């Protein structure tokens, strides 16, 4: 078996497992969609328009690309954080996997690939909802799906790496503590210019903001070369995460 093919065994395992847990899988994309209804459309009616790059767009058009990457991020971290930890600590799934020809790198690559697939599925559903609601302004939106996969890759890698340092479920509070501010303050719900300058600069280097900026640019059609910096950020974040996760899994699973 080539290394690449080995990692696909992890994906296959997860597909088989979720065929018996369809409800948790199918409802996973709902939360960002419900936020789109409540904050995007409900509160959006109170807001009116938002100015983006010199033109005014309806508030729900502004919010949708932000929640779109949130859908991808959620799909990616479900299995690489809590899901990983349950399998690692209680299910002893990885101990069983390492008895087969698969190695720890295959586990890291396989789990992250699966998370990207799951994030991509949720993002696709969200994108179709945006299309149905008329919230897509540009043909560049065909690039939204690759953007979502990049976001999923970045958060899956980082999430898996972080989870290998967790001692117990209590430590996952730190992950929640990081996710809530990222969700609320990455220009998801209101633009960067609503913040004081110094805070806007801090936010412009946080991870989810890169995805929000990319996705908003392609959905609204403000595409330019500077966007490649955001993409590079996410790519590096995911790759570093996978490397750390692979090394940590080696320490944890092969004493």
């Amino acid at each position, binding site marked *: 078996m080539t290394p690449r093919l080995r990692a696909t065994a992890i994906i296959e395992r997860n597909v088989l497992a979720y065929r018996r847990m369809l409800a948790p899988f199918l409802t996973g994309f709902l939360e960002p969609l419900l936020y789109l209804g*409540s904050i995007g459309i*409900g509160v959006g009616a109170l807001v009116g328009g938002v100015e983006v790059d010199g033109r005014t767009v309806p508030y729900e058009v502004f919010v949708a690309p932000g929640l779109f990457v949130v859908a991808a991020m959620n799909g990616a971290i479900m299995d690489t954080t809590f899901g990983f930890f349950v399998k690692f600590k209680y299910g002893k799934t990885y101990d069983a996997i390492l008895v087969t020809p698969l190695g720890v790198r295959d586990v890291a690559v396989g789990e992250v690939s699966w998370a990207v697939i799951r994030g991509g599925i949720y993002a696709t559903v969200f994108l179709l909802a945006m299309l149905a609601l008329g919230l897509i302004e540009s043909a560049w939106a065909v690039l939204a799906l690759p953007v979502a996969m990049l976001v999923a890759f970045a958060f899956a890698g980082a999430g898996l790496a972080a989870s290998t340092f967790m001692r117990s479920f209590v430590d996952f509070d730190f992950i929640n503590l990081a996710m809530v501010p990222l969700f*609320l303050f990455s220009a998801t719900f209101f633009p960067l210019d*609503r913040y004081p300058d110094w805070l806007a600069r801090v936010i412009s280097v946080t991870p989810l903001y890169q995805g929000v900026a990319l996705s908003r640019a392609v959905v609204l059609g403000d595409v330019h070369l500077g966007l490649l910096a955001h993409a590079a950020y996410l790519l590096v974040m995911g790759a570093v995460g996978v490397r750390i996760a692979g090394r940590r899994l080696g320490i944890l699973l092969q004493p």
Partner: protein
Amino acid sequence: MTGRSGLVRVVEREARVFRQLWRGPVILSFVTPVLFLAGMGIGLGGMVDDGGDRDLGGLDYLEFVTPGLLVASAMQVAAGESLWPVMAGKKWMKTYHAMVATPLDASDVVGGHVAWTAIRTAMSGSAFLAVAAVLGGVPSAWAPLAVPAAVLCAAAIAALVSAFAVGQESDLAFTTVMRLGVIPLFLFSGTFFPVAQLPDGLEPLVVISPLWHGVELARGATTGQLGLGEGVAHVAALVAMLWLGWRWAARRFTRELQA
């Protein structure tokens, strides 16, 4: 054991556990709603207030959303505490079985769970309200009455949700309960925007949302704008839900723990 002292023993146990494991619960029940208050109330609220064409009964958006987040976070804490911890008590750690092996009975377990949820949400709700007052989200001196409104809503949720949870054989359905039940309630019960904006078919349904009754009561308190008749109706609805939930939970806990 007589109902009241048995309930107190269960509450005491929960408080002792909480003293060891307070960090996560405090993040969930205090830090998260304060972050939402900053993001939605101040960040997004600034855009609502600048927008002009709003219909929030003369309130700033921060003033509108503060009571919503107060009661909604109490509801989320109550729901979360009534799902996985109940399964742990019944099946994973069997603490409930340990309890009913003492002079406590299943109704003490239910009463203790609901009472402890009420105490926790009273603590976190008071802290949240104090922060919101400093930020300018609380215009009325009646505001402290919003805390009992949140507590009543949380108690009703704790009774109803734990009654459901104790009858389950695994936690497989719990994520679905959160995603199809708790999150829609959180987002569409007048928390973030007035229910009058809901589609015509959906608006009447809010009367079955405990959160809507709680939010209306709490908003009446923090803004000082609530008619007596309305207030009584919301309290009556919540008390009825609490009573029904408690009865249902007592029956289901008894069946699971003392069969």
